[in-house]
């Protein structure tokens, strides 16, 4: 598998290198329009060249997919919390922890929006929260409750003993009164022809 990945990486670099070289050569007038036209014409010369061109295209698509997978896989591997059990390893994606925190935020009525970012390091787990609040809430009480709840629930649900730090950043406060007024206004809108009645 590693060999295939290395081969895919090599081809990916080679193709980009070649494409870059062609562009530079074209810009420096080393390669003319006629040359490129000849190559393109050659690609559609007969059935054999068409098959080769098509196969090369399909191969490049496969290489691109494997490279994308490699990159995404690497990111995924980095962003996990792992621990060992008797049967094997359990890894929990930080994305999963973020999903959990997002759901926990829904328990607080004063929170309009909550965006968590979880960072795992040797020191422990750091949870950074970006919160949008409604104006009629006590910020110290709400943030304190939120921090406590997230800390406890994450510790309980993940079963980890490492230190969990919860940092809250209030990004915006939405005026609750204004929102309510807007709601009332929209309710007051009467449908057209509402004054008429059937006789």
């Amino acid at each position, binding site marked *: 598998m590693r060999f295939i990945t290395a081969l895919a990486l090599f081809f990916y670099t080679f193709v980009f290198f070649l494409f870059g070289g062609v562009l530079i050569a074209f810009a420096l007038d080393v390669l003319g329009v006629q040359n490129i036209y000849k190559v393109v014409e050659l690609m559609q010369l007969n059935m054999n060249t068409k098959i080769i061109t098509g196969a090369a295209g399909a191969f490049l698509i496969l290489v691109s997919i494997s490279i994308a997978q490699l990159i995404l896989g690497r990111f995924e591997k980095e962003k996990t919390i792992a*621990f060992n059990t008797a049967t094997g390893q359990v890894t929990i*994606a930080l994305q999963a922890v973020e*999903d959990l925190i997002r*759901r926990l935020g829904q328990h607080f009525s004063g929170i309009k929006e909550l965006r968590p970012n979880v960072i795992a390091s040797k020191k422990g787990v750091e949870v950074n929260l970006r919160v949008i609040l409604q104006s009629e809430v006590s910020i110290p009480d709400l943030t304190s409750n939120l921090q406590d709840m997230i800390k406890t629930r994450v510790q309980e*649900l993940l079963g980890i003993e490492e230190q969990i730090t919860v940092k809250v950043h209030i990004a915006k406060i939405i005026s609750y009164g204004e929102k309510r007024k807007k709601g009332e206004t929209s309710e007051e809108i009467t449908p057209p022809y509402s004054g008429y009645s059937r006789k």
Partner: protein
Amino acid sequence: MEKEESRTDLGAVRIHKDVIASIASLASLEIEGVKKIGGDLKANIYELLGRKEKRGIKVEIDRNDEVRLDVPLVVGYGFNVTDVARNVQENIQQSLEKMTNLTIKEINVNVQRIEKE
């Protein structure tokens, strides 16, 4: 190696990796709290092609015929992730040992997401 092979008096019995993956998948879904089996891009392509048994679970068999499994999971919200992962590991081990007599080296569970039930 694609298949796990054991010999009897009458001949060889081969168990395909997909069968091991299917058993692991079913054993995982039996556990309360497991919403579905997760997966990567390749697994999603397999699912689109109708090969759901290939979804996400990776099976490796080493030279000593020991099996190593990587199981990606999506866990339901409100369940203890660690307990669910441990239960999945145990249930897969029991199911595989019961159905195939294979030696299990490792069952690695990867909780990818948490979704609402």
